[in-house]
């Protein structure tokens, strides 16, 4: 048989780089395919054009409906109102106090006009709860015009209403306005009667003058609304095509056709990404356009009082369009990666909802009052870009240009991560061909036990991270008091560290894996890496401290938080040094590293997930710190720790680095005070606390970089990312070759 075989030697491979022509080909096909689909056309084109006029119509009708609702108010004790100024004229408020609209109905009842066995209190409760009246106003018997008998208690007019009913709240607002106007008149008349000049009532007049130029004033409205509308639709516009182009194609079986064609995976991803992003942008633009046209028409027709809204200035609109491109691409890449996990369109929609929930806050954040473009906000993905566009639309070009590099850097970084994720998804056959199987609790538990492996699976790693974060969240809620002594401090540190961080990882490792040591990545690394980790910890600390200061400057800690932390900080300075080191450096280094760089890292690095392991553990590690400022610093540290975990293949150097860093953080103050010979060459005392000497700072950075380079030169002794998903199967040793000798 062997002579039949072609023994062709592998020819030099034509480049595996994505071909531009193939990407364009796939892009054009996907676009044409979507444009031929009636549902897509409806969502992206027809819906926006119809939506805004329809919404406008409905809103106008609802507004008319609410205006027509008559507010009914019962006045009890009107007979107690004597003399001036008159509040009521017959069955209505005096013209002076009426707010002009006719839909206010007054029912005037005497205090004793009640059924038998009925008190005013019970009757009022009944009227309000049953909705007989929207509000009930009760004037007390002691209400008098001459307030000269000052020894008497101040009379109180009571307005009863129902907070749960909108009509009742409207009634309260209207009644309050009438009554307070009436009260002012009353006071004025009394003063006049006593011969006092009314001018003392109003020592000055209050005038607010808006100096914003006309264009900015108009832009202010659009700069808030338009980016928001566009981002929301860019997201929605990415979702449906992404589901259809990946999950839908899987369901219809066309994805496999494409996968066995000569198109490279990267070409497929880029082509599809282009198509999804195009639809995302198209949807956003059509929606923004339709909203602009509809609303300017509506504003022209009805003219909203006090708001002058002209057409948005054209040039800033171009900025918005430019900003839309990377954001659309970002949403599209995320949607594509998530949709790849789904086996059908229906499943895809389930997966995209959580994605929407995660991204939505980033779009909503810039809408909060007081959110402005700053170094801090420019670092938040999506939000930064949103705020940048707002500055541009408002014409604050200096501010915008200042933060432009940061925003672009963050956006591009996120885009790169999202595209990388999408590409990985298309290279993962479990994602593309995952079987559809019945899920059953019993089977699953059995599977967890039976198919244990030496290292956690990726999903177990994610689960462990989630459990730790949720446990810490509730743990923090439960722990409210700041410790006042060593025992309290020990309890505050040890119980979450061991109970909420180490315990989940350890338990999962014992129950779900076959080797606790391997799953926690406790193995001997290159021996030199251990002292090097300590050196890195020492030399990196000045930079870490500077990072912490910069973060506090950029995202200032609130005064209350500082005040709450104060006793804790003071305690650290007074407690025995050894105990502080043990609690603040040793315990966290061991517990957190075993959980994050041990169990979770080991699960995430499998199947080529090096980048995933580093990034995700850094994020979970960061979030676990609770305070935003600490989280940012910890995430940065987490990336470095993850890198070392990756290069050494062990959790031990990470523990040492973590320990050294924490130990220095809690001892810098003591070291500065220690008076050790030569210590002033490294640390000085400043007003803001101990700081490193500038010379040592520079030198240490150089040393730290050298250490990092050393770690970069290491190669992990075990290839964890390729860790066999398969143990030797029972049949593997058998001579299973049955190639018959023909």
């Amino acid at each position, binding site marked *: 048989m062997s002579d039949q075989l072609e023994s062709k030697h592998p020819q030099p491979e034509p480049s595996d780089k994505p071909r531009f022509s193939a990407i364009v080909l796939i892009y054009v096909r996907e676009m044409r395919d979507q444009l031929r689909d009636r549902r897509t056309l409806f969502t992206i084109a027809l819906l926006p054009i119809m939506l805004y006029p329809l919404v406008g119509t409905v809103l106008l009708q609802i507004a008319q409906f609410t205006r027509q609702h008559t507010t009914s108010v019962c006045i009890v004790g009107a007979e107690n109102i004597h003399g001036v100024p008159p509040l009521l004229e017959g069955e209505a408020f005096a013209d002076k106090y009426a707010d002009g609209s006719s839909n206010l109905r007054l029912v005037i009842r005497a205090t004793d006009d009640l059924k038998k066995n009925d008190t005013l209190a019970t009757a009022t409760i009944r009227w309000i709860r049953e909705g007989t009246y929207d509000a009930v106003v009760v004037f007390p018997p002691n209400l008098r015009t001459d307030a000269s008998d000052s020894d008497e208690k101040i009379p109180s007019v009571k307005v009863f209403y129902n907070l749960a009913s909108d009509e009742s709240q409207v009634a309260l607002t209207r009644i309050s306005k009438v009554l307070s106007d009436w009260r002012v008149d009353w006071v004025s008349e009394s003063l006049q009667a006593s011969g006092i000049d009314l001018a003392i009532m109003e020592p000055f007049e209050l005038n607010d003058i808006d100096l914003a130029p006309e264009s900015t004033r108009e832009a202010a409205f659009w700069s808030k609304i338009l980016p928001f509308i566009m981002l929301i639709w860019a997201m929605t516009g990415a979702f449906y095509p992404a589901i259809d182009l990946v999950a839908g194609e899987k369901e219809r*079986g*066309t994805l496999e*056709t494409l996968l066995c*064609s000569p198109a490279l995976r990267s070409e497929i991803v880029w082509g599809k990404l282009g198509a999804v992003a195009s639809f995302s942008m198209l949807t956003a633009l059509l929606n923004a356009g339709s909203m602009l046209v509809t609303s300017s028409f509506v504003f022209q027709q009805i003219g909203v009082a006090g708001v002058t809204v002209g057409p948005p200035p054209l040039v800033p609109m171009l900025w918005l369009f430019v900003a839309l491109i990377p954001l659309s691409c970002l949403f599209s890449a995320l949607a594509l990666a998530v949709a790849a996990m789904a086996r059908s369109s229906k499943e895809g929609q389930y997966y995209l909802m959580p994605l929407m929930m995660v991204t939505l806050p980033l779009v909503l954040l810039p809408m909060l009052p007081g959110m402005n473009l700053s170094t801090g906000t420019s670092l938040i993905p999506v939000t930064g870009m949103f705020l940048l566009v707002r500055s541009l639309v408002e014409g604050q070009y200096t501010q915008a240009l200042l933060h432009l590099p940061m925003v672009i850097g963050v956006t591009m970084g996120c885009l790169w991560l999202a595209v990388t994720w999408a590409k990985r998804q298309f290279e993962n*056959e479990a994602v593309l061909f995952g079987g559809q199987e019945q899920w059953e609790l019993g089977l699953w538990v059995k*599977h967890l036990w039976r198919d244990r492996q030496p290292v956690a699976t990726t999903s177990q790693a994610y689960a462990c991270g989630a459990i730790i974060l949720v446990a810490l969240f509730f743990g923090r809620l439960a722990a409210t008091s700041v410790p006042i002594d060593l025992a309290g401090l020990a309890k505050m540190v040890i119980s979450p560290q061991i109970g909420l961080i180490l315990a989940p990882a350890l338990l999962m490792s014992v129950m779900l894996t076959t080797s606790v040591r391997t799953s926690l990545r406790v193995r001997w690394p290159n021996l030199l890496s251990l002292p090097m980790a300590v050196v890195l910890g020492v030399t990196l600390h000045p930079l870490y401290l500077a990072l912490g200061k910069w973060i506090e400057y950029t995202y200032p800690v609130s005064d209350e938080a500082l005040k709450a932390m104060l006793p804790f900080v003071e305690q650290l300075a007074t407690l025995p040094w050894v105990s502080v080191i043990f609690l603040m450096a040793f315990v966290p280094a061991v517990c957190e590293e075993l959980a994050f760089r041990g169990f979770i890292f080991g699960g995430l690095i499998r199947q080529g997930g090096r980048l995933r392991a580093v990034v995700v553990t850094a994020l979970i590690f960061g979030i676990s710190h609770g305070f935003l400022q600490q989280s940012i610093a910890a995430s940065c540290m987490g990336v470095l720790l993850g890198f070392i975990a990756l290069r050494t293949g062990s959790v031990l150097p990470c523990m040492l680095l973590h320990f050294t860093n924490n130990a220095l953080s809690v001892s810098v103050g003591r070291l500065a005070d220690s008076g050790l010979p030569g210590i002033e060459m490294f640390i000085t005392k400043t007003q803001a606390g101990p700081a490193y000497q500038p010379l040592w700072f520079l030198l240490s950075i150089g040393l730290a970089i050298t250490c990092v380079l050393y770690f970069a030169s290491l190669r992990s002794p075990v290839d964890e990312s390729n860790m066999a998903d398969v143990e030797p199967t029972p049949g593997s040793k058998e001579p299973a070759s*049955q*190639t018959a000798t*023909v």
Partner: protein
Amino acid sequence: MIQVDQLTKTYDDLSRGRFVAVDHVSFSVGKGEIFGLLGPNGAGKTTVLRILSTVLAPTSGRATVAGYDVVSDPAAIRRNIGFVSNNTAIYDRMTAWELVSYFGRLHGMHRKQLHTRLEFLFDQLRMNEFRNVPGGKMSTGMKQKVSIARAMVHDPPVLIFDEATLGLDVLVARNLLGVIRALRESGKCLIFSTHIMSEVQRLCDRIAIMHQGRILDIGTLAELRQRHDEDEFEELFFGLLSQFENGRDGDWNEKLEFDSQPPREGDVPS
């Protein structure tokens, strides 16, 4: 053209745990040959063919197609094969002509060359009546023809058909077998999987019988008949299957003997 050596593929499965879909399978197929993979559903045929078409990666073992390795050179293999499977559907919103020409262009064919090739294929497969019919409106037979044209558009030396006749009516299936035979005449290397015995008997030069991820026996029809001393192919097939299943319960290593020593007639339960 195709060489498969100790190919193994395992999956994690909730109910069965680590599940071996393909278990140390080895075979080879030459030029101008039709090789049949015969086995009941779930035998692992589709998995083998998906690995050969580089859609799945093997867990262990080696396979080369047209001289390229499936693990290190998947892109080169995809340029040299045509893969038709039950799972490789066609796009609903593309006409027959558009679809075949799309895949031709993905193969980097030039417009003029592609046009000539398309005219030739549409004539040969008698597809001219539904040239402009979108996939969504085609019958199963039409779709299958489009799939075959799609796989043949770049005139690949190796063609892989996975259960290609499944769901086709007798007439269309017969046509398909004719096409496959014609391809053999033009010197292509063909691998063909099915669970229908008559197709294998009529078409294949050599046959591998697969069951539960393993190849039970391999050879020409005549060789198989001779080795198992059974003229009726259906009996031979079921005999092998039940012998294997009995062997699985006991010691498989001993039962392996039949590989070199053909079992006596009495050994095959009928």
